């Protein structure tokens, strides 16, 4: 290959920036071309998708704006038709922010560095290598794909919520009510993405690492949003490829993961 993996990822990413990705890209291709183009994009061939979150860049951006930065959250929740219930008890969260102390509760230190104390960190599903939610699901409605993404089959979920008890990261949300009945004043544009389904009442959902975008050779929506404002704090790549962007970042930086002692092997890494 003339171009290495990282370059490919960049190209794929830029392609989406210029609006070539997604359905548009597919629509302009003639039959047959589509298949050929898919083969060329390594995004569809990952073995262990992961994300390295550079919190230094992220926090810097959050502090630059008056109201912080929520680009990744807005982009994700728009892409996936995530409604706002206005009630934290029933909140649906794919990607969200919480205080450092809440994100890493096992590393409390009353004298901790002011650079992270109470700082809003980005959270999402860890897409664990050894996911307890998959282990406990009685219908295989949640399952681990060959590319490492922990995915949900909403058609099959019976809503027993065993996975929510099993997830030590609070990454799973249940549809306590019908999302179409979520307060209209909080969701004026809902559904925000006509190309993505909504959910029925009584199923569990979570971040899916944008399987629907990755399949088209695009980066996840949160990554695209972060790159769009040139912060580039979210790095999506294949942990299985030694020369991938994420492996390079992990080689060069000290990173931490949430609750590593539980043996779930999160595929999300934080650069502090």
């Amino acid at each position, binding site marked *: 290959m003339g171009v290495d993996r990282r370059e490919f990822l960049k190209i794929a990413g830029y392609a989406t920036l210029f609006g070539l990705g997604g*359905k548009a890209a*597919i629509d302009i291709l003639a*039959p*047959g071309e*589509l*298949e050929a183009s*898919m083969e060329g994009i390594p995004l569809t061939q990952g073995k262990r998708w992961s994300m390295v979150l550079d919190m230094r860049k992220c926090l810097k951006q959050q502090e630059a704006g008056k109201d912080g930065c929520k680009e990744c959250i807005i982009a994700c929740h728009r892409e996936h038709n995530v409604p706002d219930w206005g009630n934290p008890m029933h909140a649906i969260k794919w990607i969200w922010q919480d205080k450092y102390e809440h994100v890493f509760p096992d590393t409390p230190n009353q004298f901790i560095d002011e650079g992270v104390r109470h700082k809003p960190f980005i959270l999402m599903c860890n897409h664990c290598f050894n996911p307890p939610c998959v282990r406990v699901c009685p219908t295989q409605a949640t*399952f681990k*794909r*060959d*590319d490492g993404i922990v*995915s949900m*089959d*909403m*058609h099959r979920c019976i809503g027993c919520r065993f996975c929510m008890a099993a997830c030590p990261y609070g990454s799973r949300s249940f549809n306590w009510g019908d999302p179409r009945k979520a307060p209209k004043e909080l969701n004026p544009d809902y*559904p925000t993405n*006509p*190309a*993505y*389904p*909504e*959910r*029925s*009442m009584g199923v569990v959902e979570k971040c899916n690492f944008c*399987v*629907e975008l990755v*399949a*088209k050779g695009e980066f996840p929506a949160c990554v695209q949003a972060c790159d769009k404002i040139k912060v580039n704090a979210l790095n999506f790549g294949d942990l299985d490829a030694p020369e991938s962007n994420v492996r390079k970042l992990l080689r060069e930086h000290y990173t931490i993961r949430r609750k590593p002692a539980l043996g779930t092997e999160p595929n999300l890494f934080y650069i502090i």
Partner: protein
Amino acid sequence: MYDGGKIIIGLIIGIGLFLSPFFYNAGKAAKAPDPQLTEKAKEAQVCVGTKEYMRESHFSLLDEWRHTAVRDGERYYTAYNGKKYYKSLQVTCMDCHSNKTKFCDQCHNYLDVDPYCWDCHIVPEEKK
């Protein structure tokens, strides 16, 4: 036979109730509806399957699509004529067949089936 009369009356009432739907609907057989094609669908001329196959088995195809797309990550479908399609009810099927009431609902109502596809999948806005 104890209470023979009561039993016979009970039987008659029971059988009557059992048959009542037949009497109620007798002579009212509705004509099977004809699914309407949109201009876009007419223009395309071909679907992901033959007309006969789609009429009889579209639900099996959709079930296979959702299974392979969601679970196996195989998001493209090669049709009988070699064309490739993105497996998506909402994005691919409904792009042509954007007239859900005339294309889907008529038959579903006629056959009294109530697929839960639309609990999640968004119905395109229909032009009146």
